Structure formats: C-alpha cells, structure tokens
C-alpha cells in the first residue's frame, strides 16, 4: 500500500499529465468473479459465468467492401477479433478484453476490463447476445482442426415485414482450445439455447419498441425523418418526439449521424443482436443522434437486458401500486415542477406525468432508495430520449450499478465519490489543490452536484447528454475524467480565486460558454472550429485516460471506511439526540455505547444471517436464479448504518447477542457450536468472518431474557429498536433507586398485569435470580450478615460452606426468598381476594412485623427431604376440596400446602418488596448488582474480553457439570436431585469449581421444587382417578421425566440452552431441504425429458445460403471523415 502510494507520488511528480496508477493489486477488496463478469458485460444479477474459452470472432465482410471505398477501410480495420468467449445462463458474450472468470483465474485476469479501455468501455469489441436471439448454431466443417461455430441470429427476422435485401446475421466463432474444452462449451451452449427459446416472445416485444428496428424496416432508401405511410407508428423515442429535442439538429449533424448508425446496424446487427466494432464506440463518442440515443444508452449500460428479462415490469409495478401512497410519492410530487423546467416537455402535463410515473414506479421497486432529490433531474433528462419503461430500467441501472449509494438514504456513494474526486485532484493537480486548500474552498461543495445529477444540472443540456453518452458506455470513471478536465481547462483562472463565491462563478461562466470556440483567435480555421466542449472531451479522455475504472475502485476502497465512519458518527449524534426525554437518564457516553452496541449487534447478526442464508441457497444447488431483476444487488454489504437503510429492529435472537455483549450473565455456558443457530453455522466454510462469529461469546437463552425482550419492546413482532433498548436500560440504570429496580423486576413477572405473581412466577423469579448471579457479583455485593440466613441449606453442605462466599450466601438468600414468598403469599381464590383487598394494607404491615423473626423458620426446601412437618402459613385458608386433597397427600412426602397446585396463590408487589428487603444480599442485588450488571460505557466490551482470552478462561463454564450437557439432561436431573455430584469439588478446580457447585445447587434446588410440584400434581391426578398405586419405579420414571421437562422448560435453560426444541427444528429443516432437493431432482428430470422433445435447430450442418448480398447505398463518406475529425 505504502509502496504503491509512493509510486503514485513519484509518478505524479515526474509527469502529472501522464499520471497513471499502477494496476491494482487489491487485497482488501475482492468482489466475486461473478459480479466482475456481470460488470464487464453489464449483465443482470442473475447471470453467472459458466463457461469460457478463447476464440476468434470472424465477421463476414459486407459485399460492398468490394467497391473499395477508403473510409470503410478506415472504419473497419479488420473483421477478425481475438478474444474470450463467455457463456452464462442466458447470454453468450465475446470481448476483446481478455478476461477470465474461472475459479482458478487470477484477480488481474478477472479485472482486466477495469484498466484502460481506449474508449470501448469494459466490454470491448465483441458482442453480448441474449441466447434467445440465436436462431441457429452450426458446427462448421473445416479442413484444419479448427473448431468453428456459426451463429445465426434473429437479427431483423422478428418483424413480420421482410426488409429488402435482407441478409441474416451470421457470426463465425473459431474456438481455440482442446477438443474437450470446445465440446464442453458447446454442450453448455446447447442447454442454454433450449432455455433461451422460451424467451423469444419477450425478445420480439422488446425489440419492436426499438427505434433501430423501425429505422431499418422503413429505410427503403427513403429519407428517415418522413416515414409516414407505415401503419405502425414509430416507437417512443422520448419526449423529444413531441416537444423537440434539445439543441439544433442541424448543428448536431443529427441526420448524418442517423445515416451512419443505419449503416452500422445493417452491417453489425441492431439492438439485441448488435456486434460492437470500433466504429460503434466512435459513433458514441461523437454524440448520439436524438432518436437512437435512448436505445444506445440502454444497450451500452445493459439496462436493455433488464427490460428484456421482464418487459412488463414497469407497467405491472404501476398497476400493482396504483392509488397507494408513500413518503417517496409526497417527495416526488414536490419536485415535479422543478425538474428541467426550461424544457417545454416538462411544462406540460404529458412530460410531468411521465416523470411522476417513472419515479413512482422506481420508488416502489426499490423502497430502500425510494426517492432522492436529483433523481428527478436525471430521469427528466432520460425521458427526453427514452420511453417511460426504458427510463425506468435505466434508472435502476444507474442506482444499482453505475452510481452505487448515490441516492441512498445516507448518500454515502455521493460523499465517497467526492472524497475520491478530491484525492484525484490532489494527485493530478497538486498546485490547484493547494491553492484551494489555502483559500479555504471546499472542492466537493462545488463538484457534488456534477456527480449527483450527472452534469445535467451544470452544463447546458446538449453537452450534458454528450457526457451521458460516454458515461453509459464506459461507466462512472467518465464523471471523474470530465470533472478533472473541467478543473484542468480552467486551471489558470481557478488559481486566482479567493473564496467559494469566485470559484463557483468561474465555473458557471465556463459552463455557459461551452459552445464557443476554444481557440477563437487562432489563424487555423480548423482549430477555431473546435468548441470548448470538444476541448473538454479531449482533455478528459486523452489527458486523463489514466483514470480508469480500477483507479476509481481502488480509491473508493481506500476512502470508504473514513466516509462511512463520518456518516455513522453523524447518524449516531443525530439519533442519540432524538432519543427523547427518557434517554436523559443515561449519560451521553452510555448512550453512545448503547448505540454502537445496538448497531454492531444488528450488523453482525445480519451478516451472520446472510451467510446462513447463502449456505442454504447453496445447498439448494442454487438452481433458481434471482427472481427479481431489479432491486439492490444480492451481494451488497448490508446493514452498515452508513450504507443506507439498515435494519432498525432486533429480533429476540439479536437481542440475546446484544445482552451477551452487555452483561456477563447473558453469555451462554456452553461453548460455541451447540446452540441452534450456530448449528447451521458451523457447517459453513465461508469467509474468515464466520470463524470470528463462531468463536465469539455465545449468548444464553433464558426465560428472563425473553421477559426482558417482551418488556422492552413496544411490539414484540417487530422487534426492539434503539429507542426501546435505551428506554429499557434507562429505567434500569437511570436512577439508582432500589425500589425502582424491585418494582421493575416484579413487573417483569407480572404476566397478567394485575399486580400479582403466582407460584410459577415466584419460582421463575428465583430461577432468574440464580441465572443472573451465576457468574458472581463482580464485587457489587458484600455480605455482612451472619450465617442465620443459610440455615436452610442441608447439613451435608454446611460442612462445605465453612468458607462461605458471597455467591453461596446468595444461594441461601434465594432459597429463603422462595420460602418467604410462599409463606407470605396470598391465596388467589376470588372470595379470599376480596378480603385480602379489604385489609391488604394492614395485612402487609402485619406481615412486616412478623417478618423480623421469620428468619429462623425452617427452610421451605430441604434437599435431605426432612420437612414433612412444614407448618402451613396462616393466610392459606384452604377450601374444603383442597384440604381433602391435602390430607391425601400428607401421606406422601410433599405436605407443603404452598406447593399444592390446587391451591393457587400469588404475591403482590408489597410482599415482593418486603421479601427482598428482608435479605441483605437480595437488597444489594437489586440496589447495585442488577443495574450494574448491564455494562455500558463504564466497562470494557465483554466481546473484547472474550476475544482476547478464550471464553472458558474468564467465564465460568459448566462443562464439568453433567446437567449442562443437553444430551443427558434426564440423567443429570436425577443425579443432581439425588445430590450425588452436587457438592463435590474436583481438586484443582478452585473458585470456579465452587461457583459451579453453587449453580448446581441452584439447579438442584429449583429442580426439587419442580419435582415436588409435579408429584403433588400427579398425586392429585391419581386421586382423581381413584387409583392408589404407589409403584416406586413408576414414580421414578415419572419423576425423571418431570424434572427433565422442568429443566428444559425453565430452570436450566441457562445451562443447557435451548436444545429442547432444537433437534426437532433442525430435523424439520433437514426434511424440508430433502424435500426441496427431491423436488428439484424431479423437476430437473422433467425438464430434461421435455427438452429432449424440443427441436432445437442446432448442430445441423446445413450450409447457409447467403453469407452476403447486402446492398447498402446510403453511404456518406463525407460524414465519416467528419466523424474522424470530431474525434481528434
């Protein structure tokens, strides 16, 4: 990089005029070969390079050549071109630019066309034929071993009327390569031709709209302009047909140009079957004739192929969205009256109507862009020469290919190209550049409209169209070349300017005098005749011929990050300011962190999704081409804020990623690869990114996170936007108020919204508390309390808890929490509710009074099953039915009425508060740990941590615990309840081992609770069925199943992940895929059978009857020589 910039500098010093950038050895950008192939031949996104082979293109000499006219020889130096023949799904392309897109080809072979093209554009001499316009392919016998094919096209045959002296177009291709390679190419071509036959109707309808077709069919030696007697009206060649074309047709030599084009078409085919020879490019350079301008723009830009693919798309889009409204439409409406208002066509309803329809249709097909000011000007200009449908496809070619990102919602392409332009000026005209810098003139404020509206708004129309002619052929580099030439031509005057005002005024006056002589005082009349515009073109394309497509690509790549960053920092500032009052509770740094993390997560997530999607497509053998011909390119880098409309909402999975980057507890315990979305992922052999992604922290999936997601989102279907996340975090972190946090937590579990959390909810809260605390408290909680609190923990464990850690104590706190909740819970029966409401307040105070001494009560859960004598809470007055049930159960091990599923109960917020505040650790949990566990700007990005050291080394993992492994949940559940493995700390495990144990305890405890509940439930059922069986084995099985379900359902989802539903899902997906593949096989087979029935005229070595016989009389030698003069 530094070497090449040094070379550049050296070169610009030595000879700034011949400045040339060394061919790019890009390692930082690597577009796919397919996209380069499409770029070179301007093919739709659906096309991929399938076959290629070196070949000679031999064009039969027109018979008029025998007359031996001089100019013809000048025009057509030879009829044999060596180049490369390419085959895609629907196209056969030949170019003298020797490019290769084979997987094995080097980058420079694939980007060959981006270098100097000497005016031919990227596709060089040759042809780009849709396969549908090939009528016949013959294998020619030849004496030597040359493998020759003759392609006969539909050129001129699609019209019903036979043209006089018509000779079918026949192209001879001599393939160079092994016999095998040639055969392979032909096989593939055969297949393509069969497919192509289906599109002949499209071809016919599209071709009939082409002015060239009309021109040739009606030529018959009559003047071109007065074709009146034909029944068919001439095709729509733009508003110019109704309102006159800009400029003086005579001065523009329109008639001569038309004759030249007519002749060119006769010899080289027209529209879809056109063959590019050097004259083609020269004729474009000298300016297109009015009526053919639109058609040639279409052909050279490739938008013709889009139209060919879906000829009705424009009309269908309009019909489909008829009557609908959008923001874009409002914006379009505002600008209709000020789009080239000086052109008469746009002072009429006819012109305005066309403009409205084209802009509207495009805004529907590409909602991401919608409408951007300046598009109105560009489309208005196009419409002078094109039909609505043509303008529609040209616009889409502009937005998607030629001016990427120009009109996007962030306009990053515009800003990027301004940076590129500035750097090119700096390199090619350092003196001027320094002067501008010294005068504090920012070049881009002046040059931006040049690029954004393709000079249409800056130069007089006639000249802007000349620039457009070349632009559509050669691509975006033309804009830069012309821009540089403008500055170069005005260099001296510009060195005198002092400020923006004088800078603008110099250029304004230059543009207004483009038609004047460049050398008004010259003695030489020829020199005097050269206009300033001609001078500009010469400077642009000769002096700046070193500015190639690859120059631009390289420069764009260089500046892209800086430009995107500045846009993104602007967007960030703006959107943080827009977050509203709630966000003020967080610091600006915190907001910035949230913003970055939010969009980073979204971006990463989308990249990930895209890769998964790509993989899926690949597995579908990518038989299906992209259905829509329009829309943003498939391989665009999506999601970056700076690039335009990016996703603004996260779904739950992305939210998990976000949380994992924010809070330690949200990071999964299982190493990468076992979660559901990494499943599809690990199979990817994609770019490096996938590795990074796979190695990143895996987010956990816990019920608590789901609750947070639902709580934060305004519409869970739509996802979370930045505002939701900021508001959510602001409520948690914004005020250091414990009550606020307790209330918030309670709210999370208040499913019915009536201020009550039921038994299930209480258990879930306790699970969440354990989930949140399983990675320790990061020093936010200190225990000063005595051991009292932990008296519920089993004796066996007491032994181990001599060294009591905060974490262990917290476990005890949670255990006590459950106990107290059940103890102070209110029964949920309606009749009792009334009473509860009446004396609710007094009850609460009573409870509080009694609570002070509640600590020494027995714990609800005792792992050693010694709590048969649990006393029932006084509030839980049971209805008769349930007391009976309870009596039944009293014989079993579960006598706790709090666990009786038949005895619904709930806690209210005051109870919850009370229970929390009664425990020091819980109090601290809500006061400091919980809000602080959301790390914003005050804490380094956990992702960075995870990246710097391996996941397992700084985060607790559960790999040593059986229960964390999805595969053996059942066993693990049983084991942990039995308490066999719970307390054992493997030697050398240290603190982590202790932590793991604590968590295991938590799992055990929660599982135990579940178990009791399940058993109670089963008891009930059994009783109801009147069966008194007490089969222990049965019980055990049931129990296992029950606890496994409980684990999967809630408690252990933080450990074991979302495996529960997963294998099933994966299975379904696989099945789907199989099905698809099956379907594909079937359809392919079907097709083969069908196509074998087709009679494809191919391979029949039938000698062609007439290779010549063309009689062209309309030949204007004088004009041809003029053409040459124009060019010089």
């Amino acid at each position, binding site marked *: 990089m530094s070497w090449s910039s040094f070379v550049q500098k050296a070169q610009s010093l030595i000879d700034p005029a011949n400045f040339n950038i060394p061919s790019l050895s890009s390692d930082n950008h690597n577009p796919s070969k397919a996209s380069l192939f499409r770029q070179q031949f301007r093919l739709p996104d659906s096309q991929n390079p399938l076959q290629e082979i070196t070949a000679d293109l031999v064009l039969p000499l027109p018979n008029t050549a025998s007359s031996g006219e001089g100019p013809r020889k000048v025009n057509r130096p030879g009829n044999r071109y060596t180049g490369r023949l390419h085959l895609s799904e629907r196209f056969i392309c030949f170019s003298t630019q020797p490019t290769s897109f084979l997987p094995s080809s080097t980058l420079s072979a694939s980007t060959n066309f981006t270098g100097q093209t000497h005016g031919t554009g990227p596709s060089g001499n040759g042809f780009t034929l849709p396969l549908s316009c090939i009528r016949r392919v013959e294998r020619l016998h030849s004496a030597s071993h040359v493998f020759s094919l003759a392609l006969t096209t539909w050129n001129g045959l699609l019209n019903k009327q036979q043209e006089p002296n018509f000779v079918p177009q026949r192209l001879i291709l001599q393939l160079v390569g092994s016999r095998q390679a040639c055969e392979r190419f032909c096989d593939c071509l055969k297949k393509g031709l069969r497919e192509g036959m289906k599109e002949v109707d499209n071809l016919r309808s599209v071709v009939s709209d082409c002015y060239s077709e009309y021109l040739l069919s009606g030529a018959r030696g009559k003047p071109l302009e007065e074709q009146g007697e034909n029944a068919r009206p001439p095709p729509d060649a733009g508003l110019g047909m109704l309102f006159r074309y800009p400029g003086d047709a005579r001065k523009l030599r329109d008639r001569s140009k038309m004759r030249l084009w007519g002749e060119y078409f006769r010899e080289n085919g027209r529209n879809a079957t056109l063959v590019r020879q050097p004259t083609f490019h020269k004729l474009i350079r000298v300016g297109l004739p009015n009526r053919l301008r639109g058609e040639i723009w279409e052909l050279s830009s490739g938008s013709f192929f889009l139209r060919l693919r879906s000829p009705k798309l424009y009309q269908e889009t309009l019909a489909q969205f008829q009557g609908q409204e959008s923001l874009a439409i409002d914006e379009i409406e505002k600008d209709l*009256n*000020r789009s080239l208002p000086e052109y008469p066509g746009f002072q009429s309803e006819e012109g305005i109507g066309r403009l409205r329809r084209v802009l509207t249709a495009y805004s529907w097909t590409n909602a991401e862009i919608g409408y*951007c000011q300046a598009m109105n000007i560009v489309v208005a200009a196009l419409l002078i020469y094109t039909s609505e449908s043509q303008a529609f496809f040209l616009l889409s070619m502009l937005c998607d290919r030629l001016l990427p990102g120009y009109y996007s919602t962030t*306009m990053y392409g*515009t800003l990027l190209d301004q940076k590129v332009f500035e750097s090119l000026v700096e390199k090619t005209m350092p003196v001027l550049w320094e002067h501008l810098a010294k005068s504090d003139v*920012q070049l881009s404020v002046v040059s931006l409209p040049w690029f954004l509206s393709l000079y249409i708004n800056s130069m007089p129309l006639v000249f802007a169209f000349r620039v457009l002619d070349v632009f559509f052929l050669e691509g975006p580099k033309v804009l830069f070349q012309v821009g540089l030439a403008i500055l170069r031509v005005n260099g001296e005057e510009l060195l005198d300017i002092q400020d923006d*005002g004088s800078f603008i005024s110099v250029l*304004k006056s230059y543009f207004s005098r483009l038609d004047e002589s460049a050398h008004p005082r010259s003695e030489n009349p020829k020199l005097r005749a050269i206009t300033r515009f001609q001078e500009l073109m010469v400077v642009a394309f000769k002096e700046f011929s070193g500015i190639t497509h690859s120059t631009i690509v390289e420069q764009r790549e260089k500046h892209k990050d800086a430009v995107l960053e500045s846009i993104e920092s*602007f967007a960030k*500032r703006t959107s943080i300011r827009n977050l509203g009052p709630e966000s003020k509770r967080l610091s600006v740094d915190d907001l910035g962190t949230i913003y970055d993390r939010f969009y980073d997560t979204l971006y990463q997530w989308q990249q990930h999704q895209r890769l998964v999607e790509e993989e899926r497509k690949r597995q579908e053998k990518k038989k299906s081409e992209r259905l829509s011909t329009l829309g943003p390119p498939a391989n665009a880098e999506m999601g970056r804020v700076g690039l335009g409309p990016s996703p603004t909402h996260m779904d739950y999975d992305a939210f998990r990623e976000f949380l994992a980057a924010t809070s330690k507890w949200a990071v999964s315990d299982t190493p990468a690869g076992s979660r559901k979305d990494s499943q599809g992922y690990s199979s990817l052999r994609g770019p490096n990114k996938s590795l990074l992604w796979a190695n990143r922290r895996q987010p956990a999936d816990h019920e608590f996170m789901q609750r947070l997601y639902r709580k934060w989102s305004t519409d869970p279907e739509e996802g979370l936007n930045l505002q939701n996340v900021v508001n959510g975090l602001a409520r948690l972190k914004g005020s250091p108020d414990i009550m606020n946090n307790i209330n918030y937590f309670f709210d999370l579990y208040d499913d019915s919204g009536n201020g009550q959390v039921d038994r299930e909810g209480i258990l879930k809260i306790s699970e969440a508390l354990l989930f949140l605390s399983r990675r320790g408290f990061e020093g936010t909680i200190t225990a000063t309390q005595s051991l009292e609190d932990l008296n519920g923990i089993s004796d066996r464990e007491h032994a181990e808890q001599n060294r009591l850690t905060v974490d262990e104590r917290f476990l005890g706190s949670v255990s006590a929490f459950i106990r107290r909740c059940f103890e102070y819970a209110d029964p949920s029966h309606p009749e009792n509710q009334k009473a509860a409401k009446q004396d609710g307040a007094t009850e609460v105070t009573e409870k509080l009074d009694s609570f002070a001494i509640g600590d020494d009560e027995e714990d609800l859960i005792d792992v050693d099953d010694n709590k048969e004598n649990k006393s029932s809470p006084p509030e839980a007055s049971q209805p008769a039915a349930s007391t009976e049930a309870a009596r039944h159960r009293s014989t079993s091990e579960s006598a706790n009425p709090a666990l009786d599923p038949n005895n619904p109960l709930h806690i209210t917020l005051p109870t919850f508060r009370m229970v929390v505040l009664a425990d020091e650790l819980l109090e601290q949990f809500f006061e400091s740990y919980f809000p602080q566990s959301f790390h914003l700007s005050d804490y380094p990005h956990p992702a960075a941590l995870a990246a710097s050291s391996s996941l397992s080394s700084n985060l607790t993992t559960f790999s040593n615990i059986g229960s964390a492994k999805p595969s053996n949940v059942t066993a693990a559940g049983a084991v942990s309840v039995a308490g066999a493995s719970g307390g054992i700390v493997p030697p050398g495990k240290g603190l982590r081992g202790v932590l793991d144990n604590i968590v295991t305890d938590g799992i055990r405890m929660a599982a135990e609770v579940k178990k009791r509940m399940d058993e109670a439930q089963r008891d009930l059922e059994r009783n109801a069925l009147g069966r008194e069986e007490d089969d222990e084995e049965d019980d055990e099985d049931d129990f296992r199943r029950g606890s496994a379900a409980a684990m999967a359902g809630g408690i252990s989802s933080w450990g074991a992940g979302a495996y529960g539903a997963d294998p099933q899902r994966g299975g379904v997906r696989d099945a789907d895929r199989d099905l698809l593949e099956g379907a594909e096989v079937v359809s392919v087979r079907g097709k083969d059978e069908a196509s074998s029935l087709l009679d494809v005229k191919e391979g029949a070595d039938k000698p062609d009857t007439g290779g010549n016989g063309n009689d062209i009389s309309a030949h204007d030698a004088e004009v041809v020589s003029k053409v040459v003069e124009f060019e010089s």
Partner: protein
Amino acid sequence: MSESAGANAPKPSSSVKLVLLGEAAVGKSSLVLRFVNNDFQENKEPTIGAAFLTQKCTLPTRTIKFEIWDTAGQERFASLAPMYYRNAQAALVVYDVTKPSSLTKAKHWVAELQRQASPGIVIALVGNKLDLTNDGGDASAAPEPENESAGADGDEAAEEGEGHDASSGNARKVSTREANTYAEEESLLFFETSAKTGTNVVDVFTAIANAIPESSLKTGRGAAGSGQTALGARSGDDSRVNLGERNAATAKEGCAC
C-alpha cells in the same frame, strides 16, 4: 440586482459564511430569496446539495458580505450538512411556526452545530411563515396578492398550498414563548419571520451581522478593490446575486439594513 451605488468611503469589509439548516419545506430558500433579492422568483433550479448565494449587508461601521449556503431540505441530504457548515461563522436554523415537528428538528440542528461546527458560531433560530398566523402578516400587510401566490415561496410553493388557504385563520402551532424560551436557554438569536411578506427577514441578517464578533472576521478577504469582486451567480438569466465584472471594483451598498 438591487442597490449598487458607489460607496464614497469604503468601510472595512469582510465576508461571513452563513449556512441555512432546517427541515424540508420550512422556507429556507424563500428566506434567502427575500433577503438577497428582496423579491420572490420562481425557483428554477432545485437545490442539489446546496445553493450558493451572496449578499452584502452594510452596518454603520463595516460591511459584511454574506456567503450563504442554502442547503437542500430532503432528509437524506442531512448527512451532507457537515460539508456545508464546516467553517461557517453563522447559521440560520429555520422552523415553521405552523409545524411543531420542525422546531424539534431545528433543536437537533442547533445541538449539532453547537457540538460540531466551529466554536463561536452565531446561531439564529428563525420561525418562518408568520404570515399564516394572526399576529403575522399585518406588519407588512399583504401586498400584491396574486404576485405572492404565484412565485411566493419558491421551491416550497407546492407544500404551502394548504397553508395559503388557511392563511385567514390562525395556523400557529408553535408559540412564540416556547421558541423564545428555548432560544434564550441556548443563547440563540431568535426571530419570527415571514418570507412571504418580508416581515423581520432583513432584521435577522442584520442581527447576525451585528452579533459576529469583530475578531472572528476575516478582514483580509473581500475588501473593496481586491481581485475578489466576481460574485457567485447561479446563472445568467436568474441573477439572484450580484454578478460583478471582473476587476471592476464596485463597492456595493448592502441590503437595506
């Protein structure tokens, strides 16, 4: 253009870069047109990026030449704004008194400028379309109604259509007090204007000219007699601004301020 009388005693002259920001359709271009041309003309060219205009403003002690960048209103052009407010010494942040959302947007622009633009930038908050309210319009009456409606609000003519119909009633949605309080909090100049009637338009620019600290003026530039007299003009026929002859040093009286 308007006033171009020879100044007998050339005052110190300096140029000031001023940028107009604000939501689409609040009348930015109209304000500038009123200030620069003291008239309305049909806006023949849409604003691509930004339009550049200049106008002089003569104060008792000095002459200020405003170099005005009138930015495009469409939302997506906002990301180009930093290009235009770079090095600006003054900014006009415009909102529409009949549209509360436009004040919110204006506040965002003020915050953006205060954080990102050159320090010491003079910011004026301007509530436009006063003519649509009861208290507006009376000051300058309503002269030549058909002339006004024809080319009145330039590029925003289309969306002001409804506004004109409602001009009989009071369409005000943003109270003067609210905006003024905000302006005081942020120490901004504050005006309510009507580009249509001309109310307060010149006052805004005069106030800005007065508020520019002497020290921040680039006195080396734009002084009479220097090579810099060719002023920017949008085009020959649409002379919104002075189009001076090269090397013909004609000092101009400024606007009527």
